[in-house]
Each structure stands twice: as structure tokens, then as C-alpha cells.
């Protein structure tokens, strides 16, 4: 078990190097480099830069070097925690990302928890009451949930809240807490706001997860060990929770591997539509403005978070499933 975790941890840096290279190729792809974009931005705001200044900057950032050298330079800076400087904001990228990272993670994790809290009981209900009215109703909700794009759901909810209740559901804080320092009141205010975007973000995942839970549990309920447990004289609900649910739950843990990327993808869209503090909209702006090192930094953070999340879910799976723990 420990060896397994260590092996996976050792692989992590290698994986990140591969990701960083792919990401570098992508952010390099737009024509021109970020200085041409910068000069253009300056020109549009009326100021300008001399050719010598541009040349000096180009040398400073190593932009006159071949791509592979530039990549190595970028990687070196990254290893020292230096994400470069944002052109648009004229501030270190690390600060820009850092300010939003906490709330980005909070939204994703809150949504993950919400998804599980809803999907698992719904799946259990559906599987233990197959073909009942409740099961059919959940099936319909699931189909619609999967078919509705995140942003569409966000738009509809915002529109209903605005047009019929005259309230704004954007942002994660009430105005008075938006720039306030952290306090208990601010955390409570956050909890009062975060559930709606978390729900919007999690709806498709909830639908998919509860379908998976239902199918897994239906499978498990037909297994002989359930009959054995019944023949022992256990109470039905205790038996269902202790045996088949426990077994149906294990493959669900491995869904975190694909669900986390989905959550980060979705949070980008939901945060943009609902105007939330999040690195998603920051990435969108960076891409549109060719603020390449900011974009690269954010893409790298996304990859790191998903790789880390997948690793954690694999370890979790090994912890709860003896078949993997003992063999692995």
C-alpha cells in the first residue's frame, strides 16, 4: 500500500513536466509573442515603447531564444514559484491566481460534496424501488440534468431570481462582505451564496453519478451475499447499507478521476456567467488578451489539481477496497 502511494507520488512530477510542455506549446501557438500583444495594448491606450525597450524586454524574457529554450526558462521560473508577470494587470501572475484559487477550490469541493450527498441517496432509492414512481421521476430529472448545459441552468436561475423575485444570485458574497477580511460572518455569508452555483455546477454530475449508483446497486442487490445476509436475519435497510451499498460505492469513488476535470471545466463557465471570483474567468480573459503566461499558469494549476485529485481518489479507493489494498 505504502509502496503503491510512493510510486504514484514519484510519477507526479514527471506527469507535471509533460503537462507543462503541452501547455507551453498551446499558449505559444497564437501568432506573435506576448510582447507584440503588449505593444499593441500600449498603443491602443495611447502610450508607446521604444524599439530598444522592446528589444531589452524581449531579451529579459528570453523571447529571442528558440522555443525549447523559452520552455526551459519558463519551467525554471515555475520551479522557483515564479509564474511571471501579467501584462494586462501588471502584477505577478502568482498573486492573481492565488487570490482566486481558494474560492475556486471551495466551489469545486463544495459542488463535489453536494453532488455525492444528493446522488448517492437518490441512486440507492432508485435501485431499492425500481420501476416505482419515485424511480421514474428521478430518471426524468436525470435525463434533463445531463442534457442541460451548466451555463443554461445558471442563466435560467438568474433570470427567474431577477425577473420574479428581484434578487441577484451572482457572486459569492453579499456586497458588504465582498472585500471584507475573513471572519466567521464572511464564511457564513459565503455558505449562504455558494450552494446555488455549486448546485448548478454539479447538476449534470449528480445526474450521471446517481445513474451509476443505481446501476451498480441493482447489480449488487442480485448477488448471493445479499441472500446470505438476509438469511442471517438482518434488518433489510441495515443489510442494504452494510453490504450492497458498500460494494456499489467503491466504483463510484473512481469516478472522481473524470469528475474533477468536469467540475473545473464547468466551474469556468458557471463562474463566468454568474460572475464569481474564480480562476476560470481569469483564464478566459487571459486567453482573449493573449496574456500567455497567466493563461499557462492557470492551465497548469488546473492540470495539477486534477492529477492530485485523481491520485487522492485512487488512494481512497485502495483504502476502502481490500481487494485493491491487498493486491496493489
Amino acid at each position, binding site marked *: 500500500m505504502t509502496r503503491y502511494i510512493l510510486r504514484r507520488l514519484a510519477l507526479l512530477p514527471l506527469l507535471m513536466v509533460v*503537462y507543462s510542455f503541452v501547455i507551453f506549446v498551446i499558449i505559444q501557438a497564437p501568432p506573435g509573442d506576448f510582447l507584440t500583444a503588449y505593444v499593441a495594448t500600449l498603443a491602443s491606450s495611447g502610450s508607446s515603447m521604444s524599439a530598444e525597450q522592446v528589444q531589452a524586454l524581449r531579451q529579459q524574457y528570453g523571447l529571442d531564444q528558440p522555443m525549447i529554450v523559452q520552455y526551459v526558462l519558463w519551467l525554471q521560473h515555475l520551479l522557483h514559484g515564479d509564474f511571471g508577470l501579467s501584462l494586462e494587470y501588471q502584477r505577478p501572475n502568482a498573486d492573481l491566481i492565488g487570490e482566486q484559487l481558494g474560492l475556486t477550490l471551495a466551489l469545486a469541493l463544495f459542488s463535489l460534496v453536494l453532488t455525492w450527498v444528493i446522488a448517492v441517496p437518490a441512486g440507492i432509492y432508485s435501485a431499492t424501488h425500481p420501476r416505482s414512481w419515485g424511480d421514474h421521476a428521478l430518471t426524468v430529472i436525470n435525463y434533463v440534468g445531463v442534457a442541460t448545459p451548466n451555463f443554461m441552468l445558471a442563466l435560467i436561475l438568474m433570470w427567474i431570481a431577477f*425577473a420574479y423575485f428581484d434578487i441577484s444570485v451572482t457572486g459569492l458574497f453579499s456586497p458588504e462582505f465582498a472585500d471584507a477580511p475573513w471572519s466567521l460572518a464572511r464564511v457564513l455569508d459565503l455558505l449562504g451564496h455558494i450552494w446555488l452555483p455549486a448546485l448548478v455546477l454539479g447538476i449534470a454530475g449528480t445526474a450521471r453519478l446517481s445513474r451509476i449508483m443505481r446501476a451498480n446497486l441493482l447489480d449488487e442487490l442480485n448477488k448471493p451475499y445479499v441472500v446470505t445476509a438476509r438469511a442471517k436475519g438482518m434488518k433489510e435497510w441495515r443489510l442494504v447499507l452494510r453490504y450492497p451499498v458498500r460494494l456499489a460505492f467503491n466504483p463510484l469513488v473512481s469516478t472522481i478521476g473524470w469528475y474533477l*476535470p468536469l467540475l473545473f471545466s*464547468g466551474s*469556468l463557465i458557471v463562474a463566468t456567467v454568474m460572475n464569481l471570483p474564480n480562476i476560470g474567468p481569469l483564464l478566459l480573459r487571459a*486567453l*482573449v488578451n493573449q496574456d500567455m503566461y497567466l493563461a499557462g499558469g492557470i492551465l497548469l494549476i488546473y492540470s495539477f489539481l486534477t492529477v492530485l485529485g485523481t491520485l487522492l481518489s485512487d488512494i481512497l479507493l485502495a483504502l476502502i477496497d481490500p481487494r485493491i489494498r491487498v493486491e496493489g
Partner: protein
Amino acid sequence: MTTLDAGTVAEDRVAVASNWRLVWWRFRRHHLAMLSAVLLIGLYVVVLMPDFFATQDPERTDARQAFIPVQMVHLFDDGKLAPWVPAIAGKRNPVTLRMEWTTDKQRKVPIRFFAPGHRWRVLGLFETNLHLIAPADPTQRIFLLGSDRLGRDQWSRIMHGTQTSMTVGLVAVALSVILGVVLGGISGYVGGKTDQVIQRVIELLQSVPTIPIWLALSAALPRDWTPTEIFFAITVILSLVGWTTLGREVRGRFLALREEDFVLAARLAGCSQMRIILRHMVPTFLSHIIATSSLAIPVMIINETSLSFLGLGIRPPAISWGVLLQEAQNIQTLALAPWLLIPGLVVIVAVLAFNLVGDGLRDAADPYSQ
């Protein structure tokens, strides 16, 4: 005795039916899937000739006709078949200085089916002016699903958006299928180092959040590309990341089939590699691939819509469902003109239909997989 005979006749019929016929019989039993299939066929007819369904040129703007509400089609007038839509009456609000429109059911604008309107080319071949619905008076504009801030007709724009969005989904999935089957097939059939490399690439692609990568890739597209070039670039970008699921599945099937007796039998009979793959292996999971791809199309549609909605997918003047939904981004506008959300409902219905058909096909193709 007769029932027994009928039973054996039915059994005989099943015994000699081809696999495709069996799939079709099982699919037919899913009523919702059948209904959805009909709906999808309807949508693809729109894809073939959106102008026939449009009532006017989707690009025609008129700032004085902005935010006109939905004009509902009524089929009967005084108990006679005489289709009409209510007329629009506008009044400028003295405080906000906005035009405020109301529909006036007393004043009827007659419309006709299969009537002449603006000119268009059928599949780019010949010109016609025939439309499904047109106002009786060609100079009159009707807005079946309202108009946007530039006074463009949303109904006609949705018809054209359908063409783009449904095509993107189909082409992107077609590309993914080719990539998935070829790479997955190589991976599963050749095995060894090749398999290892392809598997690692798949894992890499599956473990990153797709939307940010898509956004980054499409942000890299040159600004001066034409809408058509952008369109194809977007489909390629979508399929570059989207083939992995299918690749995995095809590989799994190949791995399983490699060990099957009938493949060994074919090899012993002296069949060539190519013949074994194409004649013996692929047909056993072809129906499964079709089901999986029909479940991949809605994912592509949602992705395209999301990218375009964020401004980094299909770009105006091209029209897609996502482009149309950009008009609905502002909440104040939405409160004023909620019909701008209608393209989103079209997305939901289309995706729902694809999912139902896909599930129906999967159950029909692989009755034991549940």
C-alpha cells in the same frame, strides 16, 4: 396448439434474423427512443435546408424592431383554416425611452404555408423562394420566436444555428470515431509498447479539464480566419480531445476478441490480418460503436455551445446555438426579452433526444451489457 405453433414460428423468425434486424426489433420497443429518433431526423432535415424553414434572412437587422416578443401561430380564424399571427403594437416608454411591444390579437397578420418569401438556394444547386411559413404580405416581417437586440428574427436564426450546431456535433464525432477506432484498434490489436504509449496519451487527455484546453486551443486560431475555417478548426479541436473514450472502448473489445475462438478459427483457416479485423472482429462491435458515438454527439453539441457562448467557439457572423445564446448573457436584457433563452431549450431538447436514442441503441445493440 395454435399458440404453441405461433411461438415456434416466432422463435424461428428470431433464429434466422440478422444482427441488425435484431437490433432494430429491440430498438423499436423503446418508444421514447423511437420518438426521439423521429425528432432528430426532423432536425437533420432542417440542417439540409434551414432557409426553407426560415421566414426571413437571418442577418436582416432593423434597430426599430428590436426585442419584439413571440408571435404565436394560430391555425384557425372564425373556425375556418386561416393561419395568422397577432400583430405587434409598439409604444415608447417615456421614462426608459425603450420601445415596449405588445401583441394585439384583434389585428391579425395572415400567414401562409408553402408560400414565397426571400430567395435561397436548395443545397447550393438551384434557386427558389418557397418557404414552409411566410407572411401573406411579403413586405411584412413576422417574428415567430421574437427578435433580438438588432431586430433579427430569432426563429430564422435558430434554423440556421441548427444547421451549424448539429453539423459540428456530427462531424466532430465522425472525426473522433475515426481517431478512436484507428488508434484504439492499433492499441488493442498490436499491443506491447504501442499500446502502452497510446494508453498513456489517452490517460493524459482524459485527466485534464477539457474546456480550458479547448478554450486555449481555439484562442490560438488566427483572428483573420473565415467563419468556415473557424468552424472546421473547432470541430477538429473538439474531436482531438474527444476520441479517447471511444479509443478505450475499441481497444477493450479488440483485447477481448483477440482471445476468442472464432478469431483463432479464422486465423487457422488462413485469413489475412486485414480480413480477420474487418470481416470477423469489427462487425461484432460495430453496433456498439454506433451506440457509443450517438451518445458522444450530444456531448460535442454541449461543448460547442459552451465554447461559442464564451466567445471562443463559432464566431459571428456564423450562427450556432451557442452564438445565439450570447445574446442572452445579460440578465437585464433577459428580463426584458426572456424568449432569447429559447435557443437553449432547443439545445436541451436536441441533447435529450440524442441521449435517448443513444441509450435505446446501446440497450438494443448489447442486451446483456446491463
